[in-house]
Each structure stands twice: as structure tokens, then as C-alpha cells.
């Protein structure tokens, strides 16, 4: 977004990081933790802006840098939250960090979800697994600006009950939700012991409280989920112009230089980090290889 460009202009070296202090960490599941960070430099803290769907890179010196979506509300000044899965070399070390530690942050990067386009529409948010991380930011944005949006449905799915990210937070919202025309659906696919809804996101469309004709859809999950969802949404009359997904790719720079996140074919060559990670229905269905 424009905010990222503003910030980078002020900085000499686009690969340099800003120090952020880890303030708190919580367990979200066995593999996922939520981290709360704040910029050390008050100047940056006051001016740092981002949009839902954007990401930062977290740098652990000596180990490397990894891209992580911001999952907090875009409103908080100087604070931001990251939900990080312990997936390898760098993320496993992040999991070991104690509050008080400093890390390096670059960003925000990526286009993010076009929230201005979503305005005055109902919202359908579909998350699978870790996909809840960026969508939480969208959800919080919608709550922060409740009057800009119509009805909201959020479908949070995971394989197992203990892998449902932000489950408690969403549950705690139940009462407000009814009052605010928000439908919260949490479902698991492979956990017979789970006390709650079972099945994939598509099986719970009866609980959706949005009007397909006037709704914006944001999805984040494994690419395999998108195909089925697209069919389902189109069949139910959702407007394809308002269906958006985020993609994951290997990234080393976040600014369209390192080349790893390249996607598309000869006439539609793009970078997931810069031109994405949010893409719309037409991108996905017309450019081979995106999902």
C-alpha cells in the first residue's frame, strides 16, 4: 500500500530492519503462538501504518528472515501482532524468544486486501488453519469500522480442534456477535472428539448471514481449498469481482527483487510479494499456476 512506499522512501536501505521489542507471547495451539511487538523508535511507532493482508519480515540475526502476515487490528499505534507457526529454522527460534527480546522488522509489504472496495458490502471471511492470521486482521478492521460494512460471516476451519486459531477469542465474541449481525462459524475436518461443528467450510453455508449479491469474500488457506470454494461461491451467486484470496510463496526480500515468489506465465509474470499476496478471482482463474 502507499504506506509502505512512504516508509521506504524515508529509509536509505530497503533491506534494513527496525528494532521491535517482543512484549508478550501466548500459545494459540501446539505449533502456533501469538506475539505482540512494539517498535523501539517512537518516531516509527507513531507513523507505522499497514492494511489487513499485508505482511512484515521478521529477522532473527544469525538465522535469517521470514515473511509473516500481520494479524492485529490496523488501528493499534506502534503495536502489532504476529501469529507464527513453528515450521523450521527461523520460526522455531522465534518461538523460543522471551518477552523483552528485540527482533528486526521490515515492512509492511504486499498489497493487502482492498478494504476500500469492500466498503458498504457484507463480508464473508473464510480461513483454514494458519489462514486465520491475515483474516483476523481483516475481521478486526471490519469491527473497528463496523459502520462501513454490512453483515459479516467468519468461517474459521482447521483439521483439529486444538488447531483452530483464535478459537477462544471468537467464542468470547458470541454475544456481541448476535447484536452486531456477525455470524461466527468454527469447524473442524478431522477431529471426531471436537465438541462443535464438523466438516469443511462449504458444509456450513447455511450459517452464512451475508447476501451473495452484495458481499466481499476474503479467503486464506491452502490453495487446494480455493478451487472448491470458487465453484461453491459462483454457484451461490457471489460476485466474482469481490472474491479475494492470499497466496503463499517463498520470499527473501518482500520487495519484488529476489525472484522466488514469481508466479504466472509469460504474459502475466508477477511477484506474489509485491503484486500480491492478495489476488482476485480473475487473476487466479486466468493465470495458470497460481493455485
Amino acid at each position, binding site marked *: 500500500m502507499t504506506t509502505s*512506499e512512504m516508509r*521506504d522512501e524515508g529509509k*536509505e*536501505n*530497503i*533491506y*534494513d*530492519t527496525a*528494532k521491535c521489542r517482543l512484549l508478550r507471547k501466548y500459545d494459540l495451539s501446539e505449533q502456533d503462538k501469538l506475539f505482540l511487538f512494539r517498535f523501539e523508535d517512537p518516531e516509527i511507532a507513531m507513523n507505522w501504518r499497514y492494511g489487513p493482508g499485508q505482511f512484515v519480515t521478521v*529477522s532473527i*540475526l*544469525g*538465522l*535469517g*528472515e521470514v515473511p509473516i502476515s500481520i494479524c492485529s487490528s490496523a488501528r493499534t499505534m506502534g503495536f502489532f501482532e504476529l501469529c507464527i*507457526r513453528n*515450521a*523450521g529454522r527461523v*520460526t522455531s527460534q522465534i518461538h523460543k524468544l522471551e518477552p523483552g527480546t*528485540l*527482533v*528486526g522488522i521490515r515492512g509492511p509489504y504486499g498489497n493487502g486486501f482492498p478494504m476500500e472496495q469492500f466498503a458498504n458490502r457484507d463480508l464473508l471471511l473464510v480461513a483454514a488453519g494458519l489462514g486465520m492470521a491475515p483474516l483476523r486482521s481483516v475481521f478486526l478492521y471490519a469491527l473497528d469500522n463496523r459502520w462501513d460494512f454490512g453483515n459479516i460471516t467468519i468461517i474459521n476451519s482447521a483439521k483439529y480442534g486444538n488447531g483452530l486459531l483464535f478459537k477462544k477469542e471468537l467464542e468470547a465474541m458470541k454475544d456481541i456477535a448476535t447484536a452486531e449481525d456477525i455470524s461466527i462459524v468454527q469447524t473442524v475436518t478431522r477431529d471426531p472428539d471436537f465438541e462443535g461443528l464438523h466438516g469443511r467450510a462449504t458444509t456450513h453455508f447455511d450459517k452464512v448471514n451475508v447476501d451473495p449479491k452484495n458481499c466481499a469474500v476474503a479467503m486464506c488457506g491452502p490453495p487446494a481449498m480455493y478451487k472448491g470454494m470458487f465453484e461453491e461461491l459462483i454457484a451461490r451467486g457471489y460476485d466474482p469481482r469481490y472474491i479475494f484470496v492470499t497466496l*503463499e*510463496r*517463498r520470499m*527473501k*526480500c518482500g*520487495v*519484488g*527483487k*529476489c*525472484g*522466488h515468489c*514469481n508466479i*504466472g*506465465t*509469460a*504474459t*502475466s*509474470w508477477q511477484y506474489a510479494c509485491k503484486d500480491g499476496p492478495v489476488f482476485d478471482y480473475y487473476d487466479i482463474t486466468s493465470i*495458470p499456476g497460481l493455485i
Partner: protein
Amino acid sequence: MRYVKISKQDTYEFLERLKKIGTLYAPHKVSEKFYDFCEVDDVKDVEFDYQRTIRPPRRFFYPEREVLFTFDTHKVELYENLPSKEKQILFGVHSCDIVALRTMDSKFMDDQPDPYYKVRRDNGIVIGISCVPDEYCFCNVRRVEFVDTGFDLFFHELPDGYLVRVGTVVGHKLIDPYEGEIFKEVCPDDVENMSKFEEKRASMFTTTGNWDTLRYFMEMRLDHPMYMRESEKCLGCGNCTLTCPSCKCYDVQDIPSIDGRTGERIRYWDSCQFRSHGLVAGNHNFRETKLDRFHNRYQCKNSYCKDTTTSFCVGCGRCTYFCPAGIQFKENLMEIAGYKGGTT
């Protein structure tokens, strides 16, 4: 544009003088069949006639491996390691390579400049030289066989010297001190000779025509059997991309040091022909098979570089010439697009 002329003999003198400005690199013959840009020790070793160098000129602005930052984990501080402003002069760059440098610029300088690349590029001088194609060259169908920007000076071969086009202010300043001394006025004969040279050169390309439709055919024939057949032969060695003048992929690594506290953040050239290029956590690979990786390069190289109005591939022929498996990029593209001829 300003045009001057220099004799063959004076060219050596000019090279000597260039050496005083900064580090001079020029093509050298490094073995029976291979050339490479090397630092000029003796100007007599410079090769004016060559087809292609092993390593592309981009490495002078974007080295194979460089330290971006040093760091200190106790202070959680990155210390920028910008290159020195020392002048680097590249003599003898062909037009395809000059365009390739411009595609590099479009990636590394145009928006959100990469400071490392920028420092070197700002302090670099590029001097082009005319060439004649061999059977691997197809810059003509890529429409980059003749450049009008991207160089400070461009040397066009004449029977008795070179006609020099001056491309930039830096170029003017290189000529000015020697105007009348080693750089002379151009006479009509020289222009005649240059046009003869260009005509002869144009007739030497083995591929002709216009390849602007190529990328559309490539998209409409994504499952073309060529990919399977050729990727079977591919060694995944990455030579095609590492020698490519317009490939830009890099990887970044932190190399800690033995004190357990400091270290270096380095970047080095990567290649989409390597397995890890598309690999993410959980061992998921977006380009799982050799075929996927092979396919990726063909798409990437033929995609459009808007800033140079050509594809990223500039037709230098390196990826074929240096492919140990002998995979013919140009022929394979023609097969996909259904271009029959042009082969004289």
C-alpha cells in the same frame, strides 16, 4: 548524438587511459572456446572479437555473492556494508548485454532502489562494442540487436578503427580530453563503412522475423510436449540462469561467526533450476519437479520487461552455449511458437 572516430592503435591507448580512471574490465579469451570479462592487466590481452562471455556483465553491479550487512546479535544491530564508490569500467559490452543491464536496472533501481546495486551502477561506466552473430545469437528477433541507450560509449567496428557513439554525459567527458588527439572527426566514408557492417551483420543472423507473438503461443501451449522431452535431459545445474545476463534471483543467508555473536548477512545468486527456489516450510514445493522448474525459466525469460519494451531474454545465446546437456533454448522456443524458418 555525438559521433567520433578512433583508430585501432589508439584504442589501446584509450584503454590505458581508462585504466587510470578506475578498474577496467574487458573480454579475455580464457580457453579454447570461452571468453570472460576479466580485469585488464595488459591491454593487448583484450579481445575485441568474441561472441559471449561466460559470466554476464551484471556481476559487476550485482556480484555473485556479497555481504549486505554485518550484524551483532547482542546489540540486535545490522550494519550496512555498502560497496565502495570505486569506478568500474566495462569495455566491450555487446548490445544484448546492455539491454540486459537495463532490465536489471528496471528491477533494482526504478522503484525502491537496491542501494548496493545503485552505488555500483552509479559508479560504473559501460562501453559497448559491435559484434557479429553466431548460430546461437537471436538478439535480432528480440529486437535488441542495436541499442540507443544504456551505454556511455558504443564502439562500432570499421575497417580501420571504430566509430564511437556517445550515449551519456559521462561518455562525453571520456571523449572531451582526447578530442582531436585520439578521437577524430567522423567522415562520410566511415558512415558508409558502418552501414555496410550493419548490413552484413543483419544478413548473418540465422533466425529472422518477429517474435512478439511468442509469449502468447507459449501460454496457449503450456502443455507442449517439448517441455517434457527437454526437461528430461536437463541437469538442473543452473548454468542457463547463472550465465543469463538478465536473471536476477538471489538468496539471502545469515552466516554467523565463531564468536557466537556477530556475523554476516549475505546474498548470492540463486536459480529457479534449483530445488529450493520454490520450497517453503513444511517441505511444500511450488516447483516440485524438474519439469516445473524448467517450465518456470521458459515463462520467466519470455515475459515482458515493460521498461525496456522487450522480453527479459535478450537472445545472447549463453543458456544454450553453456548448457552441459546441450539443450537448445532458441530451437525449443521456435518449436513452441511454430516458427518454421528463419534458419538460413
